[in-house]
């Protein structure tokens, strides 16, 4: 009898972008994440483009986290050209990024991850059988998208955000109205945590380093140092000296590593493992209620971590809007040559951009490292452990587990290849 030793998921559904998973049950070959998303060469064609186009162009790297790419790139360009921005701009950026993190988490949790655990093929199927949950998703997403759009002009590929600041600021009335709506969805956000806590996740304990952006005073989103659970603590400017990125033969995405250190993970779980104490008190209380403990070493719990960030994010947005007033600002940008970088927390984790700009304001070098590149090595490592621990299970079970694990990481393959 022939015993098949290979499991191949040849176009993984319900993830952003295109990948296959190849598992050899006999471990004759390493487990591979074959990311076949076609490369679009952003780092290649950004060379020769003007500094003020960069934000608009890189937002097109990803349809689910355009704000993160845009913000990171604009901050890097500003660092390269020595541009200072106002406190208001920094707050608006934070608001826009948090709102996008919430929206992205909601899409991932309800449309990509949840169908696995609720026994559905996809969201259309869910809509028929779990009306309440999907109604919750739609209601929340409407409000959150409105917030992103309020600041950016539109939720997907915003237009107001350029180097130096925002070209237009919404009226106080509109901010007041969005706060009301955010307050209305607060109870729904708590339900999200409960919906996700119902996931029956496998027990898997993985030992890795968790890397995130850290700040002394708050839950860092756009500014801070790069820290980890194993003592890494570097300035963003030292990123390229610490992290290394290399091409692999079976994927168009590059693999990021920290030479001399173990494999690492970024994302919601890594953020919570690093800076749980910086969450809002209500979020911490909720985490205790569902018995979420840090450090949490089960990668499947990235889903749960995301749901906690949804609750935390909604509260933070309300606070940020209520404690600030926003008005139109004049700003002018002077072209200066230089090199600069920036790292932010995208929904899926640490995102890094760096640019070299010449005296005409034209990009000479661009480097972009995405959360999924950061997680690439760790996903494969965890897959290996998962398959080993479930040796006795049927092929179909192992296949589903592998799919669930990759989805739990909330990978974005369009980003990873770019």
């Amino acid at each position, binding site marked *: 009898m022939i015993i098949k030793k290979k499991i191949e998921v040849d*176009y*993984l*559904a*319900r*993830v*952003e*972008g*295109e990948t296959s998973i190849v598992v050899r049950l006999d471990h004759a070959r390493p487990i591979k994440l074959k990311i076949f998303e*076609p*490369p*679009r*060469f952003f*780092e*290649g*064609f950004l*060379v*020769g*483009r*003007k500094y003020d*186009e960069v934000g*608009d*162009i890189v937002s*097109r*790297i*990803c*349809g*689910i986290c*355009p704000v993160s790419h845009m913000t990171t790139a604009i901050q890097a360009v500003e660092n390269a050209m020595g541009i200072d921005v106002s406190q208001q701009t920094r707050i608006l950026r934070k608001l826009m990024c948090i709102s996008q993190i919430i929206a992205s988490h909601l*899409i991932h949790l309800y*449309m*990509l991850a949840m*169908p696995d655990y609720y026994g559905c*093929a*996809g*969201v*259309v*199927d869910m*809509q028929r059988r779990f009306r309440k949950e999907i109604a919750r998703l*739609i209601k929340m*997403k*409407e409000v959150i*998208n409105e917030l992103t759009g309020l600041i950016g*002009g*539109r*939720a*997907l*590929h915003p*237009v*107001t955000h*350029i180097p130096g600041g925002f*070209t*237009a600021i919404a009226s106080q009335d509109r901010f007041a109205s969005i706060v009301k709506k955010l307050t209305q969805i607060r109870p729904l956000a708590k339900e999200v945590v409960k919906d996700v806590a119902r996931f029956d996740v496998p027990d898997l304990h993985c030992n890795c380093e968790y890397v995130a952006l850290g700040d002394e005073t708050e839950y860092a989103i756009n500014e801070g140092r790069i820290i980890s659970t194993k003592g890494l603590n570097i300035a963003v400017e030292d990123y390229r000296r610490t992290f290394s990125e290399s*091409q692999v*033969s079976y994927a*168009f995405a590059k693999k990021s590593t920290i030479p001399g250190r173990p494999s690492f993970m970024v994302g919601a779980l890594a953020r919570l493992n690093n800076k749980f104490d910086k969450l809002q008190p209500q979020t911490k209380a909720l985490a205790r209620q569902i018995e979420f403990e840090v450090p949490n070493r089960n990668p499947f719990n990235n889903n749960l971590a995301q749901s906690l960030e949804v609750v935390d994010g909604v509260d933070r947005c309300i606070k940020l809007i209520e404690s600030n007033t926003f008005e139109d600002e004049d700003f002018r940008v002077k072209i200066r040559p230089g090199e600069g970088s920036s790292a932010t927390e995208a929904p899926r984790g640490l995102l890094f951009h760096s640019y070299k700009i010449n005296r005409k304001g034209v990009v000479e070098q661009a480097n972009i490292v995405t959360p999924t590149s950061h997680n690439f090595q760790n996903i494969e490592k965890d897959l290996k452990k998962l398959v080993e621990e479930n040796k006795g299970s049927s092929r179909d079970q192992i296949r589903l587990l592998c799919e669930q694990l990759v989805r739990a990481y909330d990978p974005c393959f*369009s980003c990873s290849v770019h």
Partner: protein
Amino acid sequence: MRNDKPKIGVFKYSCCAGCEFQLIYFQKHIMEVFKAAEITYCKMLQSGGTEEGPFDVALIEGAITEQWQVEQLKRVRSVSKYLIPIGSCAVCGGVPAIKNTDEEYEVQKRVYDDTSLIHSVKTHPIDQYVLVDGYIKGCPMGERDLTETVISLLLGKRPDCLEYCVCVECKLRGNICVLVAYGEPCMGPVTNAGCGALCPSHNRGCYGCWGPMNDANAKALADQFERMGISKEDIRRKFTEFGQPSSQWKAGQVQS
């Protein structure tokens, strides 16, 4: 069980997947449309489904940059009643086509050490390879044209998509012209409408993300930019950020 609902297939090529998310973003509206139709293939939305079809409507997202995409696209065309590119990448090349302004190999070399593993070709929109039955423009694609197109096709009538430039929408909003009054280089006069004149309404010039309007007078706008003192290089960049492969904007893409 018999199922007479029209079948929709969604295919993704080289792009950010934003248009597929836009399908999801339309929440209520789109749920209504899709109650009348069935999505039988959409990898990002649901597992299962076969790409073999047949489809009543195939929505194609993304530009073509690799050979396998062409082969699949041709198969999809042969089993689909209507095939519609959605979003700038699929309609006019979009941002992924910026790389066409440089030597392909030069661009690849800047990103990958070993280019022997890369099989990319120059970026082309969908209609360069197969016949299409319409366009849903936008970056991300517009809600109005999407619902109009899907409803029309389901009803068997010709969709009435927006076929004029951003300036029309800008006038309707009562904006002061950012090009004439403030000397802001604005792509509005040559860019297809649909966004509601988003950028000019937010104090900046349009950057052309909806791609070229049919019969756009790119030459006149490029000349105007030049009179305003904008360098040839900057003008070329404006006309190649979206829609590099399109003939409509060629007059603005002249190398200095």
